[in-house]
Protein backbone atom coordinates (compact mmCIF):
# COMPACT_ATOMS: atom_id res chain seq x y z
CA UNK A 1 0.00 0.00 0.00
CA UNK A 2 1.44 3.41 -0.85
CA UNK A 3 2.55 5.41 2.18
CA UNK A 4 0.47 8.43 1.21
CA UNK A 5 -2.88 6.62 1.44
CA UNK A 6 -2.07 4.97 4.78
CA UNK A 7 -0.25 7.42 7.06
CA UNK A 8 1.91 5.84 9.74
CA UNK A 9 0.41 5.06 13.12
CA UNK A 10 1.84 7.62 15.54
CA UNK A 11 2.31 7.77 19.29
CA UNK A 12 -1.12 9.37 19.86
CA UNK A 13 -2.60 6.00 18.92
CA UNK A 14 -1.38 4.67 22.28
CA UNK A 15 -4.04 6.80 23.97
CA UNK A 16 -6.61 4.20 22.89
CA UNK A 17 -5.11 1.61 25.24
CA UNK A 18 -6.82 2.56 28.55
CA UNK A 19 -10.25 2.48 26.90
CA UNK A 20 -9.37 -0.73 25.08
CA UNK A 21 -8.47 -2.29 28.42
CA UNK A 22 -11.73 -1.09 30.01
CA UNK A 23 -13.78 -2.47 27.13
CA UNK A 24 -11.90 -5.78 27.14
CA UNK A 25 -12.23 -6.35 30.90
CA UNK A 26 -15.62 -4.83 31.63
CA UNK A 27 -17.51 -5.31 28.37
CA UNK A 28 -16.29 -8.09 26.09
CA UNK A 29 -15.13 -10.45 28.84
CA UNK A 30 -18.39 -10.18 30.84
CA UNK A 31 -20.53 -10.62 27.72
CA UNK A 32 -18.38 -13.60 26.73
CA UNK A 33 -18.85 -15.03 30.22
CA UNK A 34 -22.59 -14.51 29.87
CA UNK A 35 -22.54 -16.49 26.63
CA UNK A 36 -20.62 -19.29 28.39
CA UNK A 37 -22.91 -19.25 31.42
CA UNK A 38 -25.94 -19.65 29.18
CA UNK A 39 -24.75 -23.12 28.11
CA UNK A 40 -23.49 -24.38 31.50
CA UNK A 41 -25.42 -26.50 33.98
CA UNK A 42 -24.44 -24.33 36.92
CA UNK A 43 -22.03 -21.86 38.45
CA UNK A 44 -18.50 -23.26 37.89
CA UNK A 45 -17.18 -21.42 40.97
CA UNK A 46 -19.61 -23.03 43.41
CA UNK A 47 -20.07 -26.39 41.70
CA UNK A 48 -16.97 -28.35 40.64
CA UNK A 49 -18.66 -30.57 38.05
CA UNK A 50 -20.55 -28.37 35.64
CA UNK A 51 -21.19 -29.52 32.13
CA UNK A 52 -22.45 -28.28 28.79
CA UNK A 53 -26.18 -27.97 28.38
CA UNK A 54 -28.71 -26.45 26.02
CA UNK A 55 -31.51 -26.82 28.54
CA UNK A 56 -31.82 -23.05 29.17
CA UNK A 57 -32.53 -22.44 25.52
CA UNK A 58 -34.72 -25.54 25.27
CA UNK A 59 -36.75 -24.25 28.22
CA UNK A 60 -37.44 -21.04 26.31
CA UNK A 61 -38.39 -22.86 23.13
CA UNK A 62 -40.59 -25.47 24.82
CA UNK A 63 -42.55 -23.27 27.16
CA UNK A 64 -44.98 -20.98 25.37
CA UNK A 65 -44.86 -18.65 28.39
CA UNK A 66 -41.33 -17.51 27.49
CA UNK A 67 -42.17 -17.12 23.81
CA UNK A 68 -45.17 -15.07 24.92
CA UNK A 69 -42.86 -12.83 27.01
CA UNK A 70 -40.54 -12.31 24.05
CA UNK A 71 -43.48 -11.50 21.81
CA UNK A 72 -44.94 -9.06 24.37
CA UNK A 73 -41.57 -7.29 24.52
CA UNK A 74 -41.39 -7.00 20.74
CA UNK A 75 -45.04 -5.94 20.45
CA UNK A 76 -44.57 -3.14 23.02
CA UNK A 77 -41.41 -2.12 21.16
CA UNK A 78 -43.24 -1.96 17.81
CA UNK A 79 -46.17 0.12 19.11
CA UNK A 80 -43.78 2.45 20.93
CA UNK A 81 -41.74 2.93 17.76
CA UNK A 82 -44.80 3.60 15.61
CA UNK A 83 -46.25 6.11 18.09
CA UNK A 84 -42.88 7.81 18.58
CA UNK A 85 -42.57 8.21 14.82
CA UNK A 86 -46.06 9.68 14.39
CA UNK A 87 -45.54 12.07 17.32
CA UNK A 88 -41.89 12.83 16.61
CA UNK A 89 -42.08 13.57 12.90
CA UNK A 90 -44.11 16.82 12.97
CA UNK A 91 -41.95 18.21 15.78
CA UNK A 92 -38.74 17.19 14.02
CA UNK A 93 -40.01 18.83 10.81
CA UNK A 94 -40.85 22.03 12.64
CA UNK A 95 -37.45 22.07 14.34
CA UNK A 96 -35.68 21.54 11.03
CA UNK A 97 -37.66 24.23 9.19
CA UNK A 98 -38.17 26.93 11.83
CA UNK A 99 -36.40 30.14 10.80
CA UNK A 100 -36.09 31.91 14.12
CA UNK A 101 -32.98 30.96 16.09
CA UNK A 102 -34.72 31.56 19.40
CA UNK A 103 -37.59 29.37 18.27
CA UNK A 104 -35.15 26.62 17.42
CA UNK A 105 -33.38 26.91 20.76
CA UNK A 106 -36.71 26.79 22.62
CA UNK A 107 -37.84 23.70 20.72
CA UNK A 108 -34.50 22.06 21.41
CA UNK A 109 -34.88 22.85 25.11
CA UNK A 110 -38.39 21.37 25.08
CA UNK A 111 -37.06 18.16 23.53
CA UNK A 112 -34.01 17.94 25.78
CA UNK A 113 -35.80 18.76 29.04
CA UNK A 114 -37.60 15.40 29.25
CA UNK A 115 -34.38 13.63 28.25
CA UNK A 116 -32.60 15.16 31.21
CA UNK A 117 -35.31 14.35 33.71
CA UNK A 118 -34.45 10.73 34.44
CA UNK A 119 -36.43 7.62 33.64
CA UNK A 120 -37.72 6.99 37.17
CA UNK A 121 -38.96 10.56 37.51
CA UNK A 122 -40.74 10.49 34.16
CA UNK A 123 -42.34 7.15 34.92
CA UNK A 124 -43.52 8.58 38.23
CA UNK A 125 -44.98 11.54 36.32
CA UNK A 126 -47.01 9.19 34.14
CA UNK A 127 -48.17 7.26 37.20
CA UNK A 128 -49.63 10.48 38.64
CA UNK A 129 -51.31 11.18 35.30
CA UNK A 130 -52.63 7.74 34.43
CA UNK A 131 -53.53 6.03 37.70
CA UNK A 132 -57.17 5.39 38.73
CA UNK A 133 -57.12 8.49 40.94
CA UNK A 134 -54.66 10.25 38.64
CA UNK A 135 -54.91 13.65 37.02
CA UNK A 136 -56.58 12.50 33.81
CA UNK A 137 -59.26 10.44 35.56
CA UNK A 138 -59.92 13.25 38.09
CA UNK A 139 -60.39 15.80 35.32
CA UNK A 140 -62.66 13.53 33.30
CA UNK A 141 -64.72 12.70 36.41
CA UNK A 142 -65.06 16.35 37.47
CA UNK A 143 -66.44 17.20 34.04
CA UNK A 144 -68.88 14.32 34.38
CA UNK A 145 -67.53 12.60 31.29
CA UNK A 146 -66.96 9.31 33.09
CA UNK A 147 -68.39 7.75 36.22
CA UNK A 148 -65.86 4.96 36.72
CA UNK A 149 -62.12 5.66 36.29
CA UNK A 150 -60.62 4.59 33.00
CA UNK A 151 -58.03 1.84 33.20
CA UNK A 152 -55.10 3.82 31.75
CA UNK A 153 -52.21 1.99 33.39
CA UNK A 154 -51.35 -1.47 34.67
CA UNK A 155 -51.76 -2.54 31.05
CA UNK A 156 -49.77 -2.37 27.81
CA UNK A 157 -51.32 0.96 26.81
CA UNK A 158 -49.92 2.63 29.91
CA UNK A 159 -46.47 1.13 29.29
CA UNK A 160 -46.51 2.31 25.67
CA UNK A 161 -47.58 5.87 26.64
CA UNK A 162 -44.73 6.08 29.14
CA UNK A 163 -42.15 4.61 26.76
CA UNK A 164 -43.20 6.91 23.91
CA UNK A 165 -42.71 9.91 26.16
CA UNK A 166 -39.26 8.70 27.19
CA UNK A 167 -37.98 7.81 23.72
CA UNK A 168 -39.67 10.39 21.45
CA UNK A 169 -36.74 12.84 21.95
CA UNK A 170 -34.36 10.28 20.39
CA UNK A 171 -36.66 10.03 17.38
CA UNK A 172 -36.95 13.83 17.08
CA UNK A 173 -33.20 14.42 17.25
CA UNK A 174 -32.47 11.73 14.66
CA UNK A 175 -35.18 12.96 12.28
CA UNK A 176 -34.34 16.67 12.63
CA UNK A 177 -30.81 16.05 11.42
CA UNK A 178 -32.02 14.21 8.32
CA UNK A 179 -34.91 16.58 7.49
CA UNK A 180 -32.63 19.58 7.97
CA UNK A 181 -30.33 18.22 5.29
CA UNK A 182 -33.14 18.01 2.69
CA UNK A 183 -32.93 21.05 0.44
CA UNK A 184 -36.00 23.18 1.16
CA UNK A 185 -35.95 24.42 -2.46
CA UNK A 186 -37.03 20.92 -3.55
CA UNK A 187 -40.33 21.40 -1.71
CA UNK A 188 -40.68 24.94 -3.07
CA UNK A 189 -40.06 23.70 -6.60
CA UNK A 190 -42.79 21.09 -6.20
CA UNK A 191 -45.19 23.74 -4.93
CA UNK A 192 -44.31 26.14 -7.73
CA UNK A 193 -45.12 23.36 -10.17
CA UNK A 194 -48.61 23.26 -8.66
CA UNK A 195 -48.37 20.63 -5.93
CA UNK A 196 -50.20 21.38 -2.68
CA UNK A 197 -47.93 21.64 0.40
CA UNK A 198 -49.34 18.29 1.55
CA UNK A 199 -48.55 16.65 -1.79
CA UNK A 200 -45.10 18.24 -1.86
CA UNK A 201 -44.50 16.78 1.58
CA UNK A 202 -45.74 13.29 0.66
CA UNK A 203 -43.89 13.11 -2.65
CA UNK A 204 -40.69 15.01 -1.85
CA UNK A 205 -39.87 15.44 1.83
CA UNK A 206 -41.19 12.16 3.17
CA UNK A 207 -39.32 9.86 0.74
CA UNK A 208 -36.09 11.82 1.24
CA UNK A 209 -36.37 11.49 5.02
CA UNK A 210 -36.85 7.70 4.89
CA UNK A 211 -33.29 6.93 6.10
CA UNK A 212 -33.92 9.13 9.16
CA UNK A 213 -37.25 7.40 9.78
CA UNK A 214 -35.51 4.03 9.63
CA UNK A 215 -32.56 5.08 11.83
CA UNK A 216 -34.83 6.73 14.43
CA UNK A 217 -37.18 3.74 14.47
CA UNK A 218 -34.37 1.25 14.99
CA UNK A 219 -32.95 3.36 17.82
CA UNK A 220 -36.31 3.73 19.58
CA UNK A 221 -37.14 0.05 19.13
CA UNK A 222 -33.76 -1.02 20.55
CA UNK A 223 -34.25 1.26 23.57
CA UNK A 224 -37.89 0.27 24.10
CA UNK A 225 -37.30 -3.50 24.18
CA UNK A 226 -34.60 -3.10 26.82
CA UNK A 227 -36.59 -0.81 29.13
CA UNK A 228 -37.10 -2.02 32.68
CA UNK A 229 -38.43 0.74 34.96
CA UNK A 230 -41.37 1.90 32.83
CA UNK A 231 -42.80 -1.55 31.99
CA UNK A 232 -42.56 -2.69 35.61
CA UNK A 233 -44.10 0.42 37.21
CA UNK A 234 -46.69 1.33 34.57
CA UNK A 235 -47.44 -2.35 34.02
CA UNK A 236 -47.93 -2.71 37.77
CA UNK A 237 -45.98 -6.01 37.84
CA UNK A 238 -48.79 -7.47 35.68
CA UNK A 239 -47.01 -7.52 32.33
CA UNK A 240 -43.85 -9.51 31.82
CA UNK A 241 -41.19 -8.33 29.37
CA UNK A 242 -37.76 -9.76 28.67
CA UNK A 243 -35.77 -7.30 30.87
CA UNK A 244 -38.21 -7.82 33.76
CA UNK A 245 -37.93 -11.58 33.38
CA UNK A 246 -34.12 -11.38 33.29
CA UNK A 247 -33.95 -9.38 36.51
CA UNK A 248 -36.50 -11.68 38.15
CA UNK A 249 -34.34 -14.71 37.32
CA UNK A 250 -31.44 -13.04 39.14
CA UNK A 251 -33.20 -11.44 42.10
CA UNK A 252 -35.90 -13.97 42.92
CA UNK A 253 -34.78 -17.30 41.46
CA UNK A 254 -31.02 -16.77 41.32
CA UNK A 255 -31.03 -18.79 38.11
CA UNK A 256 -27.91 -17.24 36.58
CA UNK A 257 -27.76 -19.67 33.65
CA UNK A 258 -31.32 -19.05 32.52
CA UNK A 259 -30.87 -15.28 32.98
CA UNK A 260 -27.78 -15.52 30.78
CA UNK A 261 -29.71 -17.39 28.09
CA UNK A 262 -32.49 -14.78 28.16
CA UNK A 263 -29.78 -12.12 28.01
CA UNK A 264 -28.33 -13.78 24.91
CA UNK A 265 -31.75 -13.61 23.21
CA UNK A 266 -32.01 -9.88 23.97
CA UNK A 267 -28.39 -9.43 22.86
CA UNK A 268 -29.05 -11.15 19.53
CA UNK A 269 -32.10 -8.98 18.83
CA UNK A 270 -30.23 -5.80 19.81
CA UNK A 271 -27.08 -6.67 17.86
CA UNK A 272 -29.06 -7.18 14.66
CA UNK A 273 -30.70 -3.81 15.28
CA UNK A 274 -27.34 -2.11 15.88
CA UNK A 275 -25.95 -3.51 12.65
CA UNK A 276 -29.04 -2.39 10.74
CA UNK A 277 -28.86 1.06 12.40
CA UNK A 278 -25.20 1.55 11.45
CA UNK A 279 -25.98 0.42 7.92
CA UNK A 280 -28.81 2.96 7.65
CA UNK A 281 -26.65 5.74 9.11
CA UNK A 282 -24.04 4.84 6.51
CA UNK A 283 -26.73 5.32 3.86
CA UNK A 284 -27.63 8.72 5.31
CA UNK A 285 -24.06 9.99 5.29
CA UNK A 286 -23.51 8.46 1.84
CA UNK A 287 -26.47 10.46 0.61
CA UNK A 288 -24.97 13.60 2.09
CA UNK A 289 -21.78 12.86 0.22
CA UNK A 290 -23.68 12.87 -3.06
CA UNK A 291 -25.14 16.33 -2.54
Amino acid at each position, binding site marked *: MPASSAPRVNSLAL*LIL*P*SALLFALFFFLP*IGLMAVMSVLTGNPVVMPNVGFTTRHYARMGNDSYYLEVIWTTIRIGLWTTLAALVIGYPLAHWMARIRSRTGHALLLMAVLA*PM*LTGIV*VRTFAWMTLLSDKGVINQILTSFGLITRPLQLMYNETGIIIGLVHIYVPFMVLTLTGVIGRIDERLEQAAENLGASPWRAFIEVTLPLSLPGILAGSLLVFALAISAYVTPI*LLGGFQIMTLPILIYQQISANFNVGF*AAALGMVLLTISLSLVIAYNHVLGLVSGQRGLQ
Partner: protein
Amino acid sequence: MTSLASRPQSRLTVSAAQTTTAAVRGRAVPRRWGRRLYLAANIAILIFLLAPIAIVIVFALNPTPFIQFPPVGVSLRWFEKFFASRDFIHALGFSLEVAAMTTVAATVLGASAALAIARGNLPGSRLIVATMLSPLMLPAILTGLALFQSYVLLDVGRPLWGLVAGHTLVTIPYVVRTTLAVLHNFDVRLEEAAQNLGASPIRTFFEVTLPLVKPGVMAGAIFAFIVSFDQFPVSLFLVAPGSETLPITLFNYLKFDLDGTIGAASVVSILLAFIVVIALDRIVGLRSYVKL
Protein backbone atom coordinates in the same frame (compact mmCIF):
# COMPACT_ATOMS: atom_id res chain seq x y z
CA MET B 1 -57.02 57.15 -29.01
CA THR B 2 -55.13 56.22 -26.00
CA SER B 3 -58.28 55.70 -23.98
CA LEU B 4 -59.79 53.47 -26.62
CA ALA B 5 -56.69 51.40 -26.95
CA SER B 6 -55.99 51.15 -23.28
CA ARG B 7 -59.51 50.20 -22.16
CA PRO B 8 -59.71 46.64 -23.43
CA GLN B 9 -56.14 46.14 -22.40
CA SER B 10 -56.78 47.31 -18.85
CA ARG B 11 -59.90 45.15 -18.67
CA LEU B 12 -57.80 42.20 -19.69
CA THR B 13 -55.27 43.00 -17.04
CA VAL B 14 -57.96 43.36 -14.42
CA SER B 15 -59.62 40.08 -15.30
CA ALA B 16 -56.25 38.37 -15.30
CA ALA B 17 -55.53 39.86 -11.92
CA GLN B 18 -58.95 38.71 -10.70
CA THR B 19 -58.39 35.14 -11.78
CA THR B 20 -54.98 35.09 -10.12
CA THR B 21 -56.40 36.44 -6.85
CA ALA B 22 -59.21 33.92 -6.99
CA ALA B 23 -56.76 31.12 -7.62
CA VAL B 24 -54.48 32.31 -4.85
CA ARG B 25 -57.43 32.65 -2.49
CA GLY B 26 -58.66 29.21 -3.45
CA ARG B 27 -55.32 27.71 -2.59
CA ALA B 28 -54.63 29.94 0.38
CA VAL B 29 -57.66 28.80 2.37
CA PRO B 30 -56.66 25.15 2.69
CA ARG B 31 -53.05 26.28 3.01
CA ARG B 32 -53.88 28.47 5.99
CA TRP B 33 -55.85 25.62 7.57
CA GLY B 34 -53.04 23.23 6.86
CA ARG B 35 -50.63 25.61 8.56
CA ARG B 36 -52.95 25.88 11.58
CA LEU B 37 -53.29 22.12 11.80
CA TYR B 38 -49.50 21.77 11.62
CA LEU B 39 -48.98 24.24 14.46
CA ALA B 40 -51.82 22.75 16.54
CA ALA B 41 -50.38 19.26 16.18
CA ASN B 42 -46.94 20.48 17.19
CA ILE B 43 -48.24 22.37 20.20
CA ALA B 44 -50.14 19.26 21.29
CA ILE B 45 -46.90 17.28 21.00
CA LEU B 46 -45.02 19.86 23.06
CA ILE B 47 -47.72 19.65 25.73
CA PHE B 48 -47.38 15.86 25.72
CA LEU B 49 -43.62 16.24 26.20
CA LEU B 50 -43.67 18.89 28.90
CA ALA B 51 -46.92 18.39 30.84
CA PRO B 52 -45.66 15.39 32.84
CA ILE B 53 -42.71 17.44 34.08
CA ALA B 54 -45.03 20.29 35.06
CA ILE B 55 -47.33 17.83 36.85
CA VAL B 56 -44.41 16.51 38.92
CA ILE B 57 -43.59 20.03 40.07
CA VAL B 58 -47.24 20.72 40.94
CA PHE B 59 -47.43 17.42 42.80
CA ALA B 60 -44.27 18.18 44.79
CA LEU B 61 -45.77 21.46 46.03
CA ASN B 62 -49.26 20.08 46.69
CA PRO B 63 -49.80 19.46 50.44
CA THR B 64 -52.16 16.47 50.18
CA PRO B 65 -50.58 13.02 50.54
CA PHE B 66 -52.41 11.74 47.48
CA ILE B 67 -52.72 13.03 43.93
CA GLN B 68 -55.22 15.85 43.82
CA PHE B 69 -56.11 17.90 40.82
CA PRO B 70 -56.55 20.84 40.78
CA PRO B 71 -54.02 21.36 43.59
CA VAL B 72 -55.32 22.74 46.88
CA GLY B 73 -52.35 24.80 47.99
CA VAL B 74 -48.63 25.22 48.13
CA SER B 75 -46.44 23.65 50.77
CA LEU B 76 -42.86 22.57 51.16
CA ARG B 77 -43.66 19.59 53.42
CA TRP B 78 -42.52 17.03 50.83
CA PHE B 79 -39.22 18.82 50.40
CA GLU B 80 -38.83 18.81 54.18
CA LYS B 81 -39.62 15.10 54.25
CA PHE B 82 -37.15 14.46 51.43
CA PHE B 83 -34.29 16.37 53.06
CA ALA B 84 -35.11 14.85 56.46
CA SER B 85 -35.02 11.30 55.09
CA ARG B 86 -31.67 9.66 55.74
CA ASP B 87 -32.26 7.12 52.94
CA PHE B 88 -32.85 9.78 50.29
CA ILE B 89 -30.03 12.05 51.38
CA HIS B 90 -27.61 9.16 51.62
CA ALA B 91 -28.67 8.01 48.14
CA LEU B 92 -28.35 11.55 46.74
CA GLY B 93 -24.82 11.83 48.17
CA PHE B 94 -23.85 8.39 46.89
CA SER B 95 -25.22 9.17 43.42
CA LEU B 96 -23.22 12.41 43.28
CA GLU B 97 -20.10 10.52 44.42
CA VAL B 98 -20.52 7.79 41.79
CA ALA B 99 -21.35 10.36 39.09
CA ALA B 100 -18.25 12.41 39.97
CA MET B 101 -15.94 9.37 39.80
CA THR B 102 -17.59 8.19 36.61
CA THR B 103 -17.27 11.63 35.01
CA VAL B 104 -13.53 11.76 35.70
CA ALA B 105 -12.93 8.22 34.45
CA ALA B 106 -15.14 8.51 31.36
CA THR B 107 -13.76 11.94 30.41
CA VAL B 108 -10.10 10.95 30.68
CA LEU B 109 -10.57 7.60 28.91
CA GLY B 110 -13.07 8.84 26.33
CA ALA B 111 -11.18 11.98 25.36
CA SER B 112 -7.90 10.04 25.03
CA ALA B 113 -9.62 7.44 22.89
CA ALA B 114 -11.15 10.13 20.68
CA LEU B 115 -7.72 11.74 20.19
CA ALA B 116 -6.20 8.39 19.32
CA ILE B 117 -8.98 7.72 16.81
CA ALA B 118 -8.86 11.15 15.16
CA ARG B 119 -5.11 11.77 15.17
CA GLY B 120 -3.39 8.41 15.74
CA ASN B 121 -3.96 7.03 12.21
CA LEU B 122 -5.23 3.81 13.72
CA PRO B 123 -6.22 1.10 11.26
CA GLY B 124 -9.91 0.20 11.33
CA SER B 125 -10.91 3.43 13.06
CA ARG B 126 -14.53 3.13 11.92
CA LEU B 127 -14.83 -0.22 13.69
CA ILE B 128 -13.18 1.24 16.79
CA VAL B 129 -15.68 4.12 16.85
CA ALA B 130 -18.59 1.70 16.41
CA THR B 131 -17.25 -0.39 19.30
CA MET B 132 -16.76 2.61 21.56
CA LEU B 133 -20.31 3.77 20.85
CA SER B 134 -21.86 0.31 21.21
CA PRO B 135 -22.73 0.59 24.95
CA LEU B 136 -25.23 3.26 23.85
CA MET B 137 -27.18 0.91 21.63
CA LEU B 138 -26.77 -2.35 23.51
CA PRO B 139 -29.32 -2.61 26.31
CA ALA B 140 -27.71 -1.26 29.48
CA ILE B 141 -29.56 -3.98 31.37
CA LEU B 142 -27.34 -6.51 29.57
CA THR B 143 -24.20 -4.62 30.57
CA GLY B 144 -25.49 -4.77 34.15
CA LEU B 145 -26.33 -8.47 33.93
CA ALA B 146 -23.01 -9.42 32.32
CA LEU B 147 -20.96 -7.45 34.88
CA PHE B 148 -23.02 -8.84 37.75
CA GLN B 149 -22.40 -12.42 36.56
CA SER B 150 -18.68 -11.76 36.18
CA TYR B 151 -18.42 -10.31 39.68
CA VAL B 152 -20.30 -13.35 41.01
CA LEU B 153 -17.99 -15.73 39.14
CA LEU B 154 -14.89 -13.91 40.36
CA ASP B 155 -16.41 -13.73 43.85
CA VAL B 156 -15.63 -10.04 44.32
CA GLY B 157 -19.05 -9.07 45.70
CA ARG B 158 -20.52 -5.73 44.66
CA PRO B 159 -17.62 -3.28 45.04
CA LEU B 160 -17.81 0.46 44.39
CA TRP B 161 -15.18 0.21 41.64
CA GLY B 162 -17.36 -2.36 39.92
CA LEU B 163 -20.31 0.05 39.87
CA VAL B 164 -18.13 2.93 38.65
CA ALA B 165 -16.65 0.71 35.91
CA GLY B 166 -20.17 -0.14 34.74
CA HIS B 167 -21.19 3.53 34.73
CA THR B 168 -17.98 4.51 32.93
CA LEU B 169 -18.72 1.99 30.21
CA VAL B 170 -22.17 3.42 29.48
CA THR B 171 -21.02 7.07 29.66
CA ILE B 172 -17.81 6.83 27.59
CA PRO B 173 -19.74 6.92 24.27
CA TYR B 174 -20.97 10.46 25.01
CA VAL B 175 -17.45 11.77 25.65
CA VAL B 176 -16.08 10.00 22.56
CA ARG B 177 -18.87 11.40 20.40
CA THR B 178 -18.64 15.03 21.53
CA THR B 179 -14.83 15.04 21.44
CA LEU B 180 -14.70 13.40 18.01
CA ALA B 181 -17.25 15.93 16.69
CA VAL B 182 -14.96 18.80 17.72
CA LEU B 183 -11.83 17.05 16.43
CA HIS B 184 -13.44 16.45 13.04
CA ASN B 185 -14.69 20.02 12.81
CA PHE B 186 -11.53 21.95 13.51
CA ASP B 187 -8.94 22.65 10.91
CA VAL B 188 -6.03 20.20 10.93
CA ARG B 189 -3.96 22.92 9.25
CA LEU B 190 -3.82 24.74 12.60
CA GLU B 191 -1.80 21.85 13.98
CA GLU B 192 0.28 21.65 10.83
CA ALA B 193 0.97 25.38 11.01
CA ALA B 194 2.20 25.05 14.60
CA GLN B 195 4.50 22.22 13.58
CA ASN B 196 5.76 24.14 10.53
CA LEU B 197 6.60 27.01 12.86
CA GLY B 198 8.82 24.63 14.78
CA ALA B 199 6.62 23.31 17.60
CA SER B 200 7.20 19.71 18.59
CA PRO B 201 4.22 17.33 18.24
CA ILE B 202 3.88 17.30 22.04
CA ARG B 203 3.92 21.09 22.26
CA THR B 204 1.42 21.29 19.39
CA PHE B 205 -0.81 18.91 21.25
CA PHE B 206 -0.80 20.90 24.50
CA GLU B 207 -0.89 24.37 22.97
CA VAL B 208 -3.13 23.89 19.92
CA THR B 209 -5.11 20.66 20.01
CA LEU B 210 -6.06 20.51 23.68
CA PRO B 211 -7.45 24.08 23.99
CA LEU B 212 -9.46 23.56 20.80
CA VAL B 213 -11.06 20.26 21.84
CA LYS B 214 -11.85 21.52 25.35
CA PRO B 215 -15.50 22.45 24.61
CA GLY B 216 -16.20 18.98 23.20
CA VAL B 217 -14.56 17.29 26.16
CA MET B 218 -16.47 19.50 28.61
CA ALA B 219 -19.79 18.77 26.88
CA GLY B 220 -18.98 15.07 27.04
CA ALA B 221 -18.09 15.34 30.72
CA ILE B 222 -21.39 17.05 31.54
CA PHE B 223 -23.27 14.43 29.54
CA ALA B 224 -21.40 11.68 31.39
CA PHE B 225 -22.38 13.25 34.70
CA ILE B 226 -26.08 13.45 33.82
CA VAL B 227 -26.19 9.93 32.39
CA SER B 228 -24.41 8.48 35.41
CA PHE B 229 -26.61 10.44 37.83
CA ASP B 230 -29.77 9.07 36.15
CA GLN B 231 -28.35 5.64 35.35
CA PHE B 232 -30.74 2.86 36.30
CA PRO B 233 -30.26 -0.57 34.66
CA VAL B 234 -26.54 -0.99 35.38
CA SER B 235 -27.00 0.20 38.97
CA LEU B 236 -29.94 -2.18 39.43
CA PHE B 237 -27.58 -5.14 39.18
CA LEU B 238 -24.46 -3.64 40.73
CA VAL B 239 -25.47 -1.61 43.79
CA ALA B 240 -24.85 -3.22 47.16
CA PRO B 241 -27.87 -3.35 49.51
CA GLY B 242 -27.72 -0.42 51.89
CA SER B 243 -25.76 1.83 49.56
CA GLU B 244 -28.05 2.52 46.64
CA THR B 245 -28.05 5.32 44.11
CA LEU B 246 -30.89 7.86 44.04
CA PRO B 247 -32.75 6.37 41.02
CA ILE B 248 -32.75 2.94 42.68
CA THR B 249 -33.97 4.39 45.97
CA LEU B 250 -36.70 6.34 44.15
CA PHE B 251 -37.71 3.19 42.27
CA ASN B 252 -37.93 1.12 45.45
CA TYR B 253 -39.98 3.86 47.12
CA LEU B 254 -42.30 4.11 44.08
CA LYS B 255 -43.10 0.42 44.25
CA PHE B 256 -45.00 1.01 47.49
CA ASP B 257 -45.68 4.73 47.88
CA LEU B 258 -46.92 7.44 45.58
CA ASP B 259 -46.76 10.51 47.81
CA GLY B 260 -45.23 13.91 47.24
CA THR B 261 -41.77 12.94 48.50
CA ILE B 262 -41.07 11.41 45.12
CA GLY B 263 -42.26 14.66 43.56
CA ALA B 264 -39.84 16.63 45.74
CA ALA B 265 -36.99 14.25 44.90
CA SER B 266 -37.89 14.58 41.23
CA VAL B 267 -37.85 18.37 41.42
CA VAL B 268 -34.40 18.24 43.03
CA SER B 269 -33.13 16.03 40.16
CA ILE B 270 -34.84 18.20 37.51
CA LEU B 271 -33.23 21.32 39.01
CA LEU B 272 -29.83 19.63 38.98
CA ALA B 273 -30.36 18.65 35.33
CA PHE B 274 -31.40 22.18 34.38
CA ILE B 275 -28.41 23.73 36.10
CA VAL B 276 -26.27 21.34 34.10
CA VAL B 277 -28.02 22.19 30.80
CA ILE B 278 -27.57 25.90 31.38
CA ALA B 279 -23.91 25.31 32.20
CA LEU B 280 -23.63 23.23 29.03
CA ASP B 281 -25.23 25.97 26.94
CA ARG B 282 -22.91 28.56 28.46
CA ILE B 283 -19.83 26.50 27.73
CA VAL B 284 -20.44 25.14 24.25
CA GLY B 285 -23.80 26.26 22.92
CA LEU B 286 -26.57 23.70 22.57
CA ARG B 287 -26.49 23.16 18.84
CA SER B 288 -22.97 21.88 18.56
CA TYR B 289 -23.36 18.62 20.42
CA VAL B 290 -26.90 17.55 19.65
CA LYS B 291 -26.09 15.19 16.84
CA LEU B 292 -27.39 11.66 16.88
